[in-house]
């Protein structure tokens, strides 16, 4: 068989995480993560909004969390595709403001009165991932495979796809994170088997049971705790340190946010060291007298975190029970997430499943690496792997009395479709409204509303006569599209989609347009910074030359240069990039001539000295 044309340009895999995000790509020796200029792969999923409409993403943004807490957004993944009511419980834990939207059941992030959808914030993170990838590859990147938790429903997947679109990326495929982890380990070569993916990250814990049957991956059960992770362990250590400081010095550091931040980072580093060392210590500056020493052994840390680890094991047992499996029936266990480096976690998982878990790959990078494996398939690189995913929740429509009629049952292989016949109840009715839900319960009020589909343009007929065949198609990403045709007339109905928790196509388009405008503002801001730096360097260099005693400047030249410097400094404090650029360019060419003279003079002096030396 001849292959269809291969998409142009590279396709990268992106792990868009709650705490960190990163990209990977398939290379000749397998998948590899893409590094930024500092050699780092992990980009903190944090966006900090600055003055003048600017923002920073990643490590820089995370550093701003203390200084700029109300305008620094993290954990935005928790808000994706959700309504304000659904995430209201999160509000107390988030230092930034969130609010409801007038348009849909959509939560918005509020930064000084400017409201952002979670899709837009995620798009800023994706843009950063994208520019790191482009710098690493030296090529433009426009296509990606993006991972999501297995339990993400249609609205959350759609929100992820919209975020990519806003970031100028086409999400060729949305892949489940546990499936990606299994791909990173090459477990797809197994035709049959049961895989458990244990994912303990910074702030969330997920466990998924995957079944491979006849080469098809199915997520058969998933459990977890959306607020359990390495951050909790840091907090435990921090609490101990604060107690020690209070006890020894009588100082309560809780009221000093900067000191707290410092201690949090030290506690995290201490925790990480204890994964390889038996005991470790840190010193705390208390501001008065000698620094305090705090020592912790691995055994003590294990005692501290044991109750949390036990909770993850409980979730594993629940997932196994849902999958109707015994721990001994599991063929492979895969560890994902930075917190699985903790030896106690590995021991506990190994003990529960009675087998050594896979941890050969970096647990922070496994998901991105797996996404790159699938990205390679989509880029036309490999046709060996066929990843068939399933729809995580049943999909259906509201019928009489608020009952939920399932059209596609959960765990059906996607793409899948269902058709349903509809008719009218009133003479000459030309429109029908269909409410689509996702869930496993009997009544729609217990399921999640995905959206309302309004069919328009039906030919007018007596009530009950039209036969409208509505096709629900769930694509390879688990995302629904609906089409409808009136069978008697053959008229294709127009469909307006009103997503309950997401954005309409028009809204996404609007955001994209706006963000292009924003991008221009971003460019301006960046230009200004660059130009200021350039002017600053010019001024510094010229000052140095002016300070040299041996330089034969006339008094007039000196006055002129001083005046130019003063003008440049005034412009450098302003916002007018064009004026600053003009002045800097002029000054640059003037000082270039000067520099030539300086070099000429230096050479002349050197020659004189040299010839003098020869003579002498």
């Amino acid at each position, binding site marked *: 068989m001849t292959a269809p044309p291969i998409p142009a340009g590279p396709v990268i895999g992106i792990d868009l995480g709650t705490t960190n995000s990163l990209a990977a790509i398939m290379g000749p020796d397998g998948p590899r993560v893409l590094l930024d200029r500092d050699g780092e792969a992990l980009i903190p999923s944090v966006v900090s909004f600055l003055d003048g409409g600017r923002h920073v993403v990643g490590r820089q943004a995370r550093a701003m969390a203390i200084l700029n807490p109300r305008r620094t957004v993290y954990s935005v993944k928790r808000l994706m595709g959700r309504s304000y009511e659904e995430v209201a419980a999160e509000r107390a834990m988030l230092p930034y403001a969130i609010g409801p939207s007038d348009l849909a059941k959509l939560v918005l992030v509020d930064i000084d009165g400017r409201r952002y959808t979670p899709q837009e914030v995620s798009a800023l993170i994706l843009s950063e991932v994208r520019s790191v990838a482009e710098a690493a590859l030296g090529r433009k990147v426009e296509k990606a495979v993006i991972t999501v938790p297995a339990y993400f429903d249609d609205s959350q997947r759609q929100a992820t796809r919209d975020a990519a679109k806003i970031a100028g990326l086409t999400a060729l495929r949305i892949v489940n994170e546990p499936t990606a982890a299994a791909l990173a380990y090459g477990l797809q070569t197994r035709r049959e088997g049961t895989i458990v993916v244990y994912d303990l990250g910074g702030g969330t814990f997920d466990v998924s049971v995957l079944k491979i049957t006849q*080469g098809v991956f199915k997520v058969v059960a998933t459990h977890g705790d959306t607020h359990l992770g390495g951050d909790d362990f840091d907090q435990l250590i921090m609490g101990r340190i604060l107690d020690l400081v209070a006890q020894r010095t009588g100082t309560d550091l809780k009221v000093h946010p900067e000191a707290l931040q410092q201690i949090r980072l030290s506690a995290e580093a201490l925790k990480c060291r204890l994964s390889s060392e038996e005991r470790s210590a840190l010193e705390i500056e208390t501001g008065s007298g000698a620094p305090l020493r705090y020592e912790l052994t691995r055994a003590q840390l294990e005692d501290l975190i044991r109750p949390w680890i036990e909770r993850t094991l409980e979730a594993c047992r629940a997932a196994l029970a849902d999958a109707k499996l015994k721990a001994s029936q599991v063929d492979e266990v895969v560890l994902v997430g930075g917190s699985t480096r903790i030896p106690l976690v590995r021991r506990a998982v190994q003990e529960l499943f009675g087998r050594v878990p896979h941890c050969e790959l970096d647990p922070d990078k496994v998901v991105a690496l797996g996404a790159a494996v*699938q990205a390679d*398939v989509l880029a*036309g690189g490999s046709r060996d792997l066929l990843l068939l995913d399933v729809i995580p929740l049943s999909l259906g429509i509201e019928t009489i009395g608020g009952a939920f009629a399932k059209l596609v049952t959960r765990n*059906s292989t996607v793409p*899948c*479709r269902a058709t349903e016949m509809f008719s009218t109840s009133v003479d000459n009715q030309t429109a029908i409204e269909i409410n689509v839900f996702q869930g496993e319960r009997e009544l729609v009020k217990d399921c999640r509303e995905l959206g309302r589909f309004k069919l328009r343009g039906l030919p007018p007929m007596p009530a009950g006569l039209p036969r409208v065949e509505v096709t629900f198609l769930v694509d*390879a990403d688990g995302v629904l599209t609906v089409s409808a045709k009136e069978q008697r007339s053959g008229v294709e109905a127009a469909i307006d989609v009103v997503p309950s928790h997401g954005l309409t196509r028009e809204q996404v388009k609007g955001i994209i347009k706006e963000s292009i405008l924003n991008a221009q503002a971003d460019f301006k801001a960046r230009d200004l910074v660059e130009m200021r730096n350039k002017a600053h360097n010019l001024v510094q260099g010229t000052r140095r030359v002016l300070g040299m005693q041996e330089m034969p400047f006339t008094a007039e030249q000196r006055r002129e240069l001083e005046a130019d410097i003063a003008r440049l400094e005034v412009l450098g404090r302003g916002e007018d990039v064009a004026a600053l650029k003009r002045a800097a360019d002029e000054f640059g060419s003037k000082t270039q001539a000067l520099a030539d003279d300086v070099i000429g003079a230096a050479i002349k002096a050197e020659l004189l000295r040299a010839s003098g030396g020869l003579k002498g």
Partner: protein
Amino acid sequence: MTALSAPTATCPRCGAAPASTLACQACGALLDEPAGATHFARLGLPPRPDVDLAAAERAYLRLSRALHPDFHGGAGEAAVEHANRASALLNEAWSVLSLPAERLEYLLELRAPGALEGAKQLSPAFLAEALELSEEAEAAAARPAQAAALAARVRAEVDRRLAAVLRPEAWQAPDPRALATTLHELRVLRRVLRDLGDSA
């Protein structure tokens, strides 16, 4: 019962006669399905009650590779849409044909449309037996060992009935009512199995 002929066409790209109505096995082209294409025709299988499952699975996976939207990303949005639609049909075909009871119901509907719905009347003897099984299942709900034993018994009963209707000879009778009745009885027994937590 009406005889079925697999819709044949030639591949517009290479001219070969495709085994499946969804894709050409010779050149990999996605095909526009002829009207009335059946799940059997989609998988390139003869419309028979007994299916060689291993061979059918090979065909399913081979066609999945040809049809899956993953492999049509470079050919534009329309091709991806076609691939999504075709893959959905293929998945539906496989999910129906890979399960014997569902396959037989589907085949009966093809051969004798309406026969299955027209033969809902089950014998009082069978209904009494089914009611008893349901009650036993309910009583065994809290006792796993008892439930497992009952499930094994019902499963054997299901298998016995299935074996009878899987034989092509059972499909040679001109009257489809006996087949329809057996398939209805199978539905009832499978529901008991499901209630017992036996999803197989």
